[in-house]
């Protein structure tokens, strides 16, 4: 299981929960699981977030593999200059 952490801004969709353990071997599967747990969060995560998996930040991360016991953070998208 991966441990997913939510920023304070996302916690409004998780009933205040800051982290949760989720089964899923890819980011897409994890998002699907989360959407089951917290209806509506899937759309927000898919549209507006980049993802950090064990500290490494990915964009377009839907198919990115997630290892057992990985630490996953969904981040706001930011633009570089």
């Amino acid at each position, binding site marked *: 299981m991966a441990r997913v*952490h939510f*920023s*304070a*801004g996302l916690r*409004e*969709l998780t009933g205040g929960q800051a982290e949760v353990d989720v089964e899923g071997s890819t980011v897409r599967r994890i998002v699907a699981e989360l959407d089951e747990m917290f209806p509506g969060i899937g759309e927000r995560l898919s549209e507006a977030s980049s993802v*950090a998996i*064990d*500290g*490494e*930040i*990915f*964009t*377009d991360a839907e198919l990115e593999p997630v290892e057992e016991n990985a*630490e996953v*953070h969904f*981040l*706001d*998208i*930011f*633009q*570089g*200059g």
Partner: protein
Amino acid sequence: MAITEENPGYKWVGTRPIRPDGLEKVTGKARFGADLALPGMLHGKVVRSPHAHAQIVSIDTSAAEAMPGVKAVITGADFPDLAANGAHAGDIDVATNTIARDKVLYEGHVVAAVAAITREQAEAAAKAVEITYEVLPHVLTVDEAMADGAPLLHDGMITKGVDPAPEDPSNIASKILHERGDLDQGFGEADSVVEREFTTKPVHQGYIEPHAAVADANSDGRANLWCSSQGHFQMRAYTATVLGVSPGNIKVTAAEIGGGFGGKTVIYLEPLAVRLSQRAGRPVKLVMDRDEVFRATGPTSGTRIKVKMGATKDGKMTAAEVWMAYEAGAYAGSPVGAAGMTAIACYDIPNFVVEGYDVVCNKPRVAAYRAPGAPMAAFAVESVVDELARNLEIDPIDIRLANAAVEGTQASYGPKFPRIGFVETLEAIKDHPNYSEELGPNQGRGVSAGFWFNAGMMSSATVHINENGTATVVTGSPDIGGSRQSMALMAAEELGIPYESIKPVVADTETVGFNDVTGGSRVTLATGAAVVDACRLVVEDLRSRAAKTWDVELDQVEWVEGQAQHIDGAQPPLSLGDLAKKSGRTGGPISANASLNSRGVGAGFSTQLCDVEVDPETGVTRVIRYLTAQDAGRAISPDYVEGQMQGGVVQGIGWALNEEYIHDSDGVMENPSFLDYRIPVASDLPMIDCSIVEVPNPAHPYGVRGVGEVGIVPPMAAVGNAINDAVDVRMTELPMSPIKVLEAITDQSD
């Protein structure tokens, strides 16, 4: 240069050869956006709103169309209505920022454009376009825009990130929030608490080359576009979206670029030039004046930021509370998200709340500017850190070392940091002779630090081996900060041939695979990784061809310093030139492509040391000494790395001391020229001393992190902290112009 890792003994990486674009640039042969001229080409002129906020009641183009030489006049009605087509909100904003439809949202917003045989004819026709406006009340700052009852820019803007969602629209596009621990407990544990409020003004990226585009549309719906940008694939995508056509119908060629700094990652002229060319049936060139660049492009956000931080007497930070509001300009999308993630990212603070608001107002839509969002937040936070150090009588480097993020620290924005080099930059400053240089009367010293994520994203590269064993390295990343040299150096290292034998080329959108923008400090990392991958494919191919030539197994062949060698020395070596000359016998031309979505981005940190002298009679601040230490991961091209470090600092000094957008009460910009908007020039500044720190990024083949952005994060606080050290006044408003410094000195002595 501070080397923190053992030098791996590269032959080319880390050297300082002559830059590949140098000759063309110093002889004037390099072609920038405005340099292209095509047979039959027309000249365009854009018509812009004189009002900060107004309804467009009517547009009459008939007089303009009848004028001599005029071949086309376009308005918003000549573009598809993306909103009606159900397009993404972000695309609709791009389209209506390119040319207004029913409403103008800032002074300088495009309303129409004309094309004529001469520029003078186009300018005359632009003045003849008759537009009737109904002027609306406007808001120029976050304070005005967030006030109760403020005039609204967008009737349907409901603040995102708030639960429950507000029922009424406002000018607040979104809210961001990061928090950890218990704020009350954290401040309760502190021996010193500092609370300050800061404001910063919008500043422009200040690139020397104004925006320019030439379009040549064909009757079959295809078009060629030449423009100065940070990413011609991005220009293609945006232009296609605004025009409602397939990206494949537009070929974009990257001109040389005279500066971008984030401001040329977005479109302004390109769809207008294509549409004018389609209407006129001839090529059209559009070039902005400096005045237009200021009024309608860039800038970065003006802000209001409140910071409260606490620390124990031994300097351990216990709590931080940050509130920030960032101007987005006319459309949602300020960099407040990144500001919230970077504000306190340098430090390991157990209790914090960072809250931010993205606020629209009647100014040009903000564009990215080096480490977008981070510099303003760092000005506020690093000023407060300096004040904490003073209150607690702790050395400013030591208080930062006591709280510095290291590998494994849970970053304030969420994940744990992988290997990073912040501590090494702090130590590089402390160990430098500048840190103990004696100061004279009215002189002061300031320290500041900054963080930026850096980026990866998508890149492609092709490597061709020419018949004499030289190589052409083709990418699609416009060269803004020396990427051609970095690509050539890495390719030389991989192929084992001299740097001078490699020609790096930036190709058009039909000649090389997709590349994301040159931005986010990503090109040396990501496009560099694609070049390395392509070179390694070429080397594998070369080994295979040598094995065929010698009739041996592949594992009998190794590639050493540009030669195929038999592992037992049973065959005389085959150089790259030998193999290239006979490539027809071994399978044909030697070439390889690589494309990737880059992984393993390495974060960047910078610590800076500024010495100033303040004239207490006039308030004039002069920077007398400046040192910047930055973790490059690995400096592929140290000359260019130092150039990036120095450039970021210089822009930051301008932001600190001089630069600001000034508007009158009607929302009209009063200083749209480099005469009245003064950026620093060489004679204003001392040599910016550089200390390149190298803590290699383990995820990149050469350890690259990216260097283009973090250098602009610390300077404003470094200057402000130095002013405080010199004359004992805490400056909380940018720019710290002479009149403000003098006022602060006078207030203090009253």
